[in-house]
């Protein structure tokens, strides 16, 4: 699949870089898939905080398994109502629900801190004990894949079967 | 327990190097003890357990020092044993090292020199964790808003009631005053320049703060006097401020048989010169004044060459240190109460300022004729860590050692001080006074610092024969013997044998409960209710140190009624 790099001018006069995996390039400006190349930030939110000691709850799932995207990026990605986003970094990938966030600049995505965000964070601490939870380069694309729930997220790790709760 | 045949120095009881037996039972010195435990102290020096009246050993400042100085932590590492927790640190040792190292020196009591009321809980958490020794903490009052307002209003009754309340709230032992007024000014980055420089926003002067707190202290008949860190501490020419401060309180009388004011780490307050270029000692002036005024006492604040960590409630001083030294700097201002700072330092022999400072501490101790007015300290860890006390004692006892040291220093130590001309060498009785009997008396601890019947069974035994060793010549022997007690006995239990800790009992914590008239207490409460509602960031009900933090209290009663 060929990759095409284009730059789109977005609001506030700033530019964000996108990788376009396109069909019909050179004729009309239409794409089957656009991958957004962005910087991933993770951090606290109220909803994440309010449910962080109830990690098996739907509230935690709803609060934490989403990816906030700037409005222009969201629109550029052409995410439809039933679509999620796949976030991929050199450390892993994860499917998240997508939502617009007018506080985010183009080219920056935000995932509430938690196991979904950490699926794509690297383990290198740069010699100071702390991973780079903010600032990982990521690619974002729409997907029809479902978001894993917290059990599914850990299913391939230890002996989840028969979990006692 | 019977300690047989030691050569005992017990200045409070007039025992000057007599060979005698001591009996201890149930933690106290008695006429004659039963039991079979006998300690053979023949040919050894026996003294009451050492008492440190001024050291920074617990609380926020000390822990800030540890956290910002991992390089210091690495300097004192000793692994855990079956009996002992691990030790770390040289200037800012961990809690266990503090207890073990004091015990190895033959010290059995140490007082934390400065704790803000708001953060006293933290101080006590650390004091609880220090093994073996008995402890106490002096409470900071010199920049507290309630104090400043009482002084402004001239309300001595209310001030005394607040001091009593503050001691209770902090489980504190005495009234510490640090750079009075300067800490409040530092809230907006300022300082006071002398004892008559008004404190911003409060319309009071350091002179008034000191006088009122001393009067409140005496009205409450507290066991210890006001414990003062002077204004302008650490600055060239500050001896004038120091003398001015002392003259300002000459008319105040002590309410008990003790000093009326203790000026702490005097070395830092005895400076002449208009700047660092003409920096010089004014120790002779200070000591001369003390020789004429026996109502005042001081401690040395002796400087030790090498690494130190300066830490004080005098925050503007620390900011100045950090700028001067280009060193890392921590500051911690405490709402409504105090400020503080921490800066690491290395004192160098070839640094002219440090060399003069070193000499000043010794001049002060040696020129003050009455040893009862003087305590040996290093203001741990400001002048240097307390583990260097044997070095200081050796210096006090040996002119030869002082000359040997002076020869290795910047020559201004000889030119700008009187130390080379001082012939005095302390004897063992004087050493017992400045390290034990004196600090116990100055703190107001009748059961410490002596070995009379009823005293705490705290004894240090050193493997040195005072009748055979000449400290003047054999100062190395003195230093080595004092650094590793042959025995340290705490409340009748051997805690150190042959310089090693062999038992780890938990000591107790002194604090003072002073009674005041209910009418005054009620007025203080009303003020505090308002202050907590408007200004403090916590609730009044969560403020006071709870009993859970002082598990072995030793409460001293005092007060107006």
């Amino acid at each position, binding site marked *: 699949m060929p990759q095409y790099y284009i730059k789109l001018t977005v609001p506030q006069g700033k530019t964000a870089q996108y990788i376009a995996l396109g069909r019909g390039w050179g004729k009309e400006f239409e794409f089957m898939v656009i991958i957004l190349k962005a910087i991933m930030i993770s951090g606290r939110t109220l909803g994440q905080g309010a449910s962080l*000691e109830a*990690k098996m709850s739907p509230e935690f799932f709803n609060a934490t398994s989403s990816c906030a995207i700037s409005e222009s990026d969201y629109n550029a990605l052409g995410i439809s109502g039933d679509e999620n986003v796949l976030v991929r970094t050199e450390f892993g990938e994860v499917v998240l629900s997508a939502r617009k966030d007018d*506080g985010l600049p183009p080219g920056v995505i935000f995932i509430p801190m938690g196991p979904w965000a*950490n699926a794509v964070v690297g383990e290198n601490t740069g010699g100071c*004990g702390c991973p780079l939870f903010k600032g990982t380069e990521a690619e974002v694309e729409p997907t029809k894949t479902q978001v894993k729930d917290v059990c599914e997220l850990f299913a391939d790790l230890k002996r989840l079967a028969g*979990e006692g709760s | 327990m019977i300690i047989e045949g030691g050569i005992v120095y017990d200045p409070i009881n007039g025992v000057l190097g007599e060979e005698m037996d001591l009996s201890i039972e149930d933690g106290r010195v008695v006429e004659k003890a039963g039991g079979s435990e006998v300690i053979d102290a023949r040919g050894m020096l026996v003294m009451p357990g050492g008492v440190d009246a001024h050291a920074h050993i617990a609380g926020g400042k000390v822990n800030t020092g540890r956290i910002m100085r991992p390089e210091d*932590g690495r300097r004192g590492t000793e692994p855990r044993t079956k009996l002992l927790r691990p030790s770390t640190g040289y200037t800012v040792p961990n809690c266990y090292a503090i207890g073990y190292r004091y015990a190895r020196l033959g010290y059995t009591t140490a007082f934390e020199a400065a704790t803000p009321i708001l953060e006293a809980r933290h101080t006590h958490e650390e004091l609880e964790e220090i093994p073996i020794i008995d402890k106490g903490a002096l409470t900071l009052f010199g920049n507290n808003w309630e104090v400043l307002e009482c002084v402004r209003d001239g309300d001595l009754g209310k001030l005394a009631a607040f001091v009593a309340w503050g001691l209770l709230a902090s489980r504190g032992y005495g009234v510490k005053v640090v750079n009075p007024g300067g800490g409040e000014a530092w809230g907006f980055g300022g300082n006071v320049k002398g004892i008559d420089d008004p404190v911003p926003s409060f319309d009071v002067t350091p002179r008034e703060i000191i006088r009122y707190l001393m009067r409140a202290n005496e009205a409450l008949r507290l066991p210890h006097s006001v414990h003062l860190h002077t204004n302008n501490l650490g600055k060239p020419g500050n001896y004038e401020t120091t003398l001015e401060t002392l003259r300002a309180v000459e008319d105040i009388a002590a309410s008990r048989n003790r000093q009326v004011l203790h000026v702490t780490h005097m070395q830092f307050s005895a400076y002449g010169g208009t700047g660092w270029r003409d920096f010089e000692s004014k120790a002779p002036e200070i000591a001369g004044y003390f020789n004429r005024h026996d109502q005042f006492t001081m401690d040395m604040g002796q400087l030790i060459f090498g690494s130190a960590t300066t830490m004080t409630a005098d925050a503007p001083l620390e900011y100045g240190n950090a700028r001067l030294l280009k060193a890392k700097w921590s*500051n911690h201002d405490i709402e409504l109460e105090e400020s503080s700072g921490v800066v690491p330092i290395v004192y160098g022999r070839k640094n002219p300022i440090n060399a003069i400072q070193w000499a000043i501490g010794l001049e002060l101790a040696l020129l003050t004729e009455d040893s009862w007015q003087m305590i040996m300290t290093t203001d741990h860890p400001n002048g240097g860590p307390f583990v260097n006390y044997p070095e200081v004692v050796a210096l006090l006892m040996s002119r030869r050692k002082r000359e040997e040291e002076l020869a290795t220093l910047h020559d201004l130590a000889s030119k700008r001080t009187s130390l080379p001309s001082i012939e005095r060498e302390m004897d063992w009785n004087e050493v017992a006074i400045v390290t034990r009997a004196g600090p116990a008396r100055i703190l107001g601890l009748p059961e410490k610092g002596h070995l009379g019947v009823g005293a705490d069974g705290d004894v240090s035994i050193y493997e040195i024969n005072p009748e055979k060793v000449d400290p003047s010549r054999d100062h190395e022997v003195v230093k080595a013997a004092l650094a590793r007690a042959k025995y340290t006995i705490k409340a009748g239990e051997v805690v150190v044998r042959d310089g090693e800790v062999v038992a780890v009992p938990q000591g107790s914590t002194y604090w003072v409960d002073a009674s005041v008239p209910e009418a005054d207490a009620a007025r203080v409460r009303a003020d505090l209710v308002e202050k907590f509602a408007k200004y403090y960031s916590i609730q009044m009900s969560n403020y006071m140190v709870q009993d859970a933090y002082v598990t072995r209290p030793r409460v001293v009663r005092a007060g107006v009624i």
Partner: protein
Amino acid sequence: MIEEDVLCPFCGCLCDDLKVEVEEGRIVGVKRACRLGMSKFMGHERIVAPMVRRDGVLVETSYEEAYERAAEILKAAKRPLLYGWCSTVCETAKKGILLAEEVGGVIDSTATVCHGPSIIGIEEKGLAGSTLGQVKNRADLIVFWGANPAEAHPRHTLRYSSNSTGMFTPEGRGGRKVIVVDVRKTRTAKNADKFVLIRPGTDYEVIAALRMIVKGKGDLLPDAVAGIAKSDLEEVADMMKAAKFGAVLIGLGLTHSRGRYKNVDGALSLVADLNGFTKFVVLAMRGHYNVAGFGQVCAWETGYPMAVDLSRGAPYFNPGETAACDLLARREADAMMVVAADPASNFPRKTVEAMAEIPVIQVDPYPNPTTFIADVVIPTAVCGIEAEGTAYRMDGLSLRMKKVVDSVYPTDEEVVENILDRVRRLGDDN
């Protein structure tokens, strides 16, 4: 019955003014708490009983067996890692450090993945700080840098910072300026007088540029630094120098992004520089209610605030080598005890995979992803609600947490002490 002045065991604000309504031993209402505190007091699903893993399955067991299994795991391990300690009281931490000494383990707290880099920054530069009440009473300029209290510390602004009132700040928010520096326009930023949007990972450059302007060397700067116009930075520097008392409140935006501890070093240095012109303090916006407390206890007990390796009997500290993430990433830890934390959620995936390969003991009131990979699960009482003890607020102020209701569960402290007892009984052979 209403319990007054209850402390909140959620975030580093450690609010101490909550009113908790208790009826028949149950909490039925909480006043003054934010959404975070409220959710904690009103309760979540709990781990019902101790569990141990048998044939790959967690099955309920007695506390006795759980303690025994935990002790056996720790005793058998060559390089046990004891991690967490921040959503519990200091009394637990003390026992935990003793346990780590006893088993020759490494003890580390959640601080290493939050403000750990701030602590390393403090080791470089020191911290010019104050209590929060000092900010409340004096600050006329507040700078939130990489911090979003609107979501992480909801009552901070009202109790301590931008919207609080005090002796010299009677007008509250009206008498103050608020600057927010962040990579996105957070809810906190929306309340700022001046918002500086920076690109992720450029904090260090921006701070360095500000330091140059503050120290009068701005003419050496280009017209824009990391995409920020120099004029914008000059405006910020002017606001800082014009303040009577400025407070820089730093968040994970500095510690979690490129530069990490060097960003914090820069912020601390900027504040030290500003004190040459006016009064400035800097505080870290600590996350968990007692993350600061573990650091305090660990420092006075071992000399170091986190990531302490006790395998050689004497404390050894070198974050990057001895921090939890590093030990796991290197597959060095061969057993892990997790107390009051959830590293399975909060560590990078590769690190969690390493956890899944070794025996894990979990001590916690609540089930969470760490439960999925635990071999021993020991439920406990919730500190600050069902158990009392000491906690340190984000500014280092120590307070006593209350117990407002009884619990059927043992406290964290009791559990750690029980495991310590079992470890000691297993003998001294390592």
